[in-house]
C-alpha cells in the first residue's frame, strides 16, 4: 500500500469529510479488541462500569445521545437543554436505536414534561426481544459446533427486530394532539462556548424566537427523556439473561445494556464506548449456544 499523497486534492477532501464526521462525534480512532483481551470463557461473567455522570438522552424517535460531560440537574427538560446535551454528547445513536418503552411517552401534559432523572425503572415488562437476522461475528462462528440445545439462543440475541427501524414496538411519535412542540429548538441561548465549539453539529438549530407562548425563550421539550447515572455503577449484563438465553431488560441498566449493544452493532468492538467489549463477548457467546 502506498502512503497517501498529502498534496492530492482527493486526499484533502477525504480529510475534510472525516473532520465533519469527527465534529459529529464519530470516533476517529478505533481500537482492535480481539477476543483474548476479554477471555471468552468469562463471556457471561463480564461486568460493565458506567462512568460517573453518564447520561443518556432518548428522543421520541428512538435516537440516543450519550454524554458524560453534561451536568443534568434533573430539572424540567427544555429545548435549550436538549440542544446543549446534543452538543456535549460523545456518542450518538440514530433513530430507532432505543425501544419504545424507554422513549418519552409523547404526551405533553400541561405540567412540565417529565424526565426520569436517573431512576425511572419504567420498564418492568421484561421485554423479550424477539428475533433478528444478525449475522454472527467472525470469532462467534468459530464455535459453531457449540450449538446443541438451547436453540433459541442461536436466534434470539439482544438485537431486537425493530432496531434500526422505526416500526416494531410501537410508535411514540407525536400525534399532533399533544400540544407539544413537535420539534425544534426555539432557543438561541444557553450555548456555552465549550459545547457549541467543541461538538459542533447540532441539527436542530432552527432558532425561531416565536415558539411557544410561555413567555420564556426556552420552552419545555417533550420529545426527549434523560436517564442519568449519578455515580459510577458496575453491573453484569449477563444477569439480564434468563435460563433460556433470552434477554429480560428493564430499568436504567437495561437501557444502558441496549445502548452499549447498539453501539457495538454499529462500530463493532473497535470503539471506546464503556462496556462494548463485554456486550459483544456476551452476544458472541449467545450466538453460538
Amino acid at each position, binding site marked *: *500500500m502506498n502512503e497517501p499523497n498529502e498534496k492530492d486534492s482527493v486526499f484533502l477532501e477525504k480529510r475534510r469529510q472525516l473532520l465533519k464526521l469527527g465534529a459529529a462525534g464519530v470516533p476517529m480512532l*478505533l481500537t*482492535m*479488541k*480481539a*477476543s*483474548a*483481551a476479554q*477471555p*471468552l*470463557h468469562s*463471556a*457471561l461473567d463480564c461486568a460493565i462500569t458506567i462512568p460517573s455522570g453518564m447520561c443518556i438522552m432518548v428522543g421520541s424517535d428512538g435516537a440516543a445521545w450519550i454524554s458524560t460531560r453534561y451536568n443534568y440537574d434533573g430539572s424540567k427538560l427544555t429545548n435549550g437543554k436538549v440542544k446543549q446535551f446534543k452538543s456535549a454528547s460523545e456518542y450518538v445513536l440514530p433513530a430507532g436505536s432505543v425501544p419504545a418503552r424507554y422513549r418519552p411517552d409523547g404526551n405533553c401534559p400541561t405540567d412540565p414534561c417529565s424526565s426520569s432523572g436517573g431512576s425511572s425503572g419504567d420498564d418492568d415488562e421484561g421485554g423479550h426481544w424477539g428475533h433478528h437476522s444478525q*449475522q*454472527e*461475528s*467472525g*470469532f*462467534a*462462528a*468459530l*464455535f*459453531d*459446533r*457449540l*450449538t*446443541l*440445545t*438451547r*436453540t433459541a439462543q*442461536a436466534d434470539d440475541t439482544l438485537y431486537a427486530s425493530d432496531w434500526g427501524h422505526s416500526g416494531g414496538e410501537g410508535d411514540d411519535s407525536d400525534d399532533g394532539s399533544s400540544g407539544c412542540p413537535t420539534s425544534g429548538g426555539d432557543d438561541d441561548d444557553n450555548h456555552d462556548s465549550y459545547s457549541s465549539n467543541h461538538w459542533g453539529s447540532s441539527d436542530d438549530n432552527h432558532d425561531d424566537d416565536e415558539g411557544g407562548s410561555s413567555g420564556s425563550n426556552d420552552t419545555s421539550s417533550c420529545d426527549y427523556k434523560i436517564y442519568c447515572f449519578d455515580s459510577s455503577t458496575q453491573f453484569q449484563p449477563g444477569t439480564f439473561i434468563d435460563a433460556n438465553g433470552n434477554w429480560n431488560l428493564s430499568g436504567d441498566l437495561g437501557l444502558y445494556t441496549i445502548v452499549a449493544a447498539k453501539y457495538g452493532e454499529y462500530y*463493532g*468492538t*473497535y470503539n471506546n464506548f464503556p462496556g462494548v467489549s463485554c456486550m459483544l463477548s456476551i452476544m458472541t*457467546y449467545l*450466538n*453460538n*449456544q
Partner: protein
Amino acid sequence: MRRLEDYGRRAVRQALRRGTLVLHLGPFAMQLKADSRALLAFLLSMYGACHATLEAGVLADFSLHVRAPNMIRRFVRRQITPDPGFYFPTVPLPRPMAPLALEMGMNLAVALQCFRFAIYHAGVVADERGAIAISAFSGGGKSTLTAALMEEGFRLLSDEFAIMGLDEPGLYPYPRPVSLKNASVEIVRAFAGAEEMSTTLTGTPKGDIGYRRARPHELEMMHEPAMPKLLLFPQFSLDAEPRAEKVEPGDAVMRFIAGSPNYHALGEAAFGSLMAFADSVAAYDLHYGNTADSIALVKDLWREHGS
C-alpha cells in the same frame, strides 16, 4: 510415525480410554481421552490417516477429555461435554454426538491455548501459487467453499483456522475434517463422494452436521506453510447474483482480526505478521447463490491474484 489406522481398533480404544492417544496434526499434538464408541468410530474414520502415538509420556500441546458433564449424566440421559482443561461454558450434548464434542473441544483447545501462532477464524486452501483465506460469518458458506475448492486442485490447510506465523504471514496447515451443516452436507457429498464423508449427525438444533475428511496428500503436506494471496469474505444467499467486490485493506484487517482469539495476547509479533498478511493479500466480498458461482468467482480472482 504410524498412522492411527495402522494400530488395531482395540489398541486405539484402550489408548483413548487411558488418555494416551496423541494425534500429531500440523503444528499441534493433541492428547485425547474419551470412552465413547461413537467417538472412536469417528476418529478411526475421519482421522485414520493422521499420525498418532498411543504410548504414555508423549509430549502434547493440548489435552482434551470428552466426558460426561457429571456423574449422573454418565448413566441417566447420558450426556457428553468437551473438557479442554479450562473452564468454558459449554452446553452438554447427547452422548451420540460425541464426535461433535470432540471437534468442538479441539477447536477450543487451539483457539484459546495456542500462543505460538496467531489464530484467525478462517478456512484456508492453497496450491503451488499461494493460499486463499476464507473468512465468513456463520452460514456465509466458508466450509462449503473450502470443500468445493478442495475439488478444484487446492489442498486443505484448515477449515477452521488460519494459523499464521509470528512476524511472518505464512499460513500453516491443520488439516482436520471440514465441518458442514444442513444442505451443505449433501452438496459436498455429491461432489466429494460419500466415502469421503462422515456419518451425518442429525437432530442437532442447528440441523444436520457432517464432516468431509482431509485427504492423504493434505496430511503429507501438513508441515508446509503457504503464503497468503487472497482473502475472501463469502456471503451465500439463495439465488444471489454472483459478484466480487473489493474490500479496502483496512476494513479487511478489521474484519479478519475480529475472528482472532489470541491476537491481543501475542503483541507486536502478531501485529507484524498481520500487517504483512494485509500487504500480501487482495481482499474481496463474494456474493453468490450457489457453489458453482462461488467457484467461478474464486477462479477469476485467482487468475488475477494467484501469481
